[in-house]
């Protein structure tokens, strides 16, 4: 069982950092960049995320309304997804949250909620992503890295972010080395806001990635490899989103092959008795903590 984080206090939950960081990026894009969602779309996305979370929680009989995760999904979508209809943002938020309740294996999410919504809407050709929108401004990149680093370290999933970034950077630099390109080419490829948002706020999601560290590192490297293959081999855009969606079903498999204790957002503050695994009607296994606070 994972040792409880001795510095944990409920106020410093990683999700608060995540909410602040994502909201900061959203405000930055609204103030300083073209092509962000309008504020109606932002409001609709967040309201839809909260509403679906609340309704689904009631439907499955949860006592606890987990607004933070819903808020993170809503903000993440506003940062990454683009549509000219505000309602698509609401739909995306609905899909993201509903996906958490529908696609579950042993109490864990199969897909990252935001990633699932993005991929489905891209498939439906109802929206697009705007990977180039952030520019390559060094200051912004720096702020993002620091903010994101803080978030993932709090959630104890920095290993995912780091191994993904290292693997992706290795492939980008390796490819440029093979092609004989100057360093500016792979650096430009890595100075991409969407890539960093993905690395720090999406793949680092502890609820849809393997529990064991070695499995996480393998998973992150695999996502990086598939993303690079999609972008550099198939010449398709949005490689990271497709790659994560394609690899996500492996996460439950990796958990089965290499079991470890489950990440619990604020389990550290709770008594050990909550970590007991309950066997639910239908044979599903859940930790007691998941039953109380599953999303």
């Amino acid at each position, binding site marked *: 069982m994972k040792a409880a984080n001795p510095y944990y206090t409920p106020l410093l939950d990683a999700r608060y950092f995540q909410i602040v960081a994502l909201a900061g990026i959203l405000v930055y894009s609204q103030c300083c960049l073209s092509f962000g969602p309008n504020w109606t779309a932002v409001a609709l996305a967040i309201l839809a995320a909260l509403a679906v979370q609340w309704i689904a929680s009631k439907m499955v009989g949860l006592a606890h309304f987990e607004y933070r995760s819903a808020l993170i999904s809503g903000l993440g979508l506003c940062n990454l997804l683009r549509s000219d209809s505000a309602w698509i943002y609401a739909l995306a938020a609905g899909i993201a949250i509903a996906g958490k309740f529908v696609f579950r294996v042993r109490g864990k999410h199969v897909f990252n909620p935001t990633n699932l919504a993005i991929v489905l809407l891209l498939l439906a050709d109802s929206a697009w992503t705007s990977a180039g929108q952030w520019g390559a401004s060094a200051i912004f990149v720096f702020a993002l890295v620091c903010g994101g680093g803080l978030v993932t370290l709090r959630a104890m999933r920095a290993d995912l972010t780091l191994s993904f970034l290292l693997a992706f950077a290795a492939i980008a630099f390796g490819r440029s080395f093979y092609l004989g390109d100057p360093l500016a080419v792979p*650096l430009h490829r890595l100075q991409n806001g969407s890539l960093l948002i993905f690395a720090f706020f999406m793949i680092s999601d502890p609820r849809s990635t393997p529990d064991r560290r070695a499995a996480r590192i393998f998973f992150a490297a695999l996502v990086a490899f598939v993303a690079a293959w999609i972008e550099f081999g198939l*010449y398709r*855009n949005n490689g990271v989103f497709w790659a994560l969606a394609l690899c996500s079903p492996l996460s439950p498999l990796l958990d089965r092959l290499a079991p470890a204790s489950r990440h619990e957002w604020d389990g550290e503050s709770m008594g050990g008795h909550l970590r007991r695994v309950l066997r639910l009607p239908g044979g599903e296994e859940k930790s007691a903590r998941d039953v109380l606070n599953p999303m």
Partner: protein
Amino acid sequence: MAAAVALALAGLIYSPEIAAFCGFYVGRADARLFNRASRVVLARSGDRTVLTMASDFEGPLTEFALVTPVPVVLRRDQIHVGESAALDRIDAFTAPRLVEYFDGNPCETISYHDVVRSQNAEGVGGGNRVQPTAGQGVRIEARYTVGEYDILILSAEDSGGLLSWLSQNGYRLPPGAEPVLQSYIRQNLRFFVARVNLEEQSRTGYRYLRPIQIAFESPRFMLPVRLGTVNANGAQELFVYALSPRGRIESVNYRTARIPSDAQVPEYIKDEFANFYRDMFTRSAEREGLSAIFLEYAWDMGWCDPCAADPLSASELLQLGAFWAGTPGAASTFVTRMHIRYTGESFPSDIVFQETSDRGNFQGRYIMRHAYNGPAECAAGKEYRRSLPARHEQEAQSLAALTGWSIDSIRARMGQNGPPPERAWWQRVFQD
């Protein structure tokens, strides 16, 4: 004779002469205001692309050559020589526009009409024959004469061989081109090489070079700009007119910014719209450190408001490569005009694009309001007169902010339509 090789977009090769801006295009905001601008039409649907490349090459035609990487070996019928007129039409249709409003009698209502213009323009022409021989790891995949161009499709094993083959065959590439060629070779790209065939050129009767068009099917949706930045002195200017049945086309690896729009500018800009547009663009591009792509127009081709030129007909769109245009049930064509000023530092990689489903409209539009000068003795009329100086000052300020022109010279140019000269503080006291 060796063709001088200075590359702009995609390896459009120019002679070193720089055509000075002659002030001929006053009042128009078209691409030809910019010296040595490359113009490209990208028609894209699914994996199919039609690329139209035009340069404003001016000089002896023997000096013209174009080298651009292409993802596939093109057949003879995948290459075509287009018409400059079609390119000029789409340039005029998408150009930033000055809209003129006339204030009505404030005691009655306000009316307006638009003033926007389009134009035709020309380049220049001459030529030279290529005598290619394969060797040095260079393979001539195909050789065609299309219109006034001799065209080769080359593949190569390494850049050194390609470079020496090109130089032996009269193409002078700039120093520094080799690593870029090597990168393209390793990416399994072929090279499309075009020069002017003087005999064919004189037969066409055109005085200028017509744009070259190629059609191919490939998931790669990019513009190779790296060759063009190798020896460029200063920034390159590129206009991309992208056509898609889906919606706006945007770059995935560079930031897109909107050109400032909907600003109210002083009336005298009517005679200086060209200067205004050039300086405003320069200021906007510099503000972004030459690292952004500017969106100047995004619109459904079916209509416009106001129209800088009539919307292009289905046959004109077909000429520009929009292969879906005019087919029954086809979606209307969405046009995106992008304006890029870039250097090798600010654009280290080739520009990769994507189609989006964004059909939101945007245009670079500047507003000129003529004040009402007739009699207006009602209370609203007096109020209107009192409001004019503040409005004129606002116009002067926004013009200065957009272009970087000095506010004093703007005020001076505005003359009596300008804001009144600032009074010293004591003049409020001793007013006689």
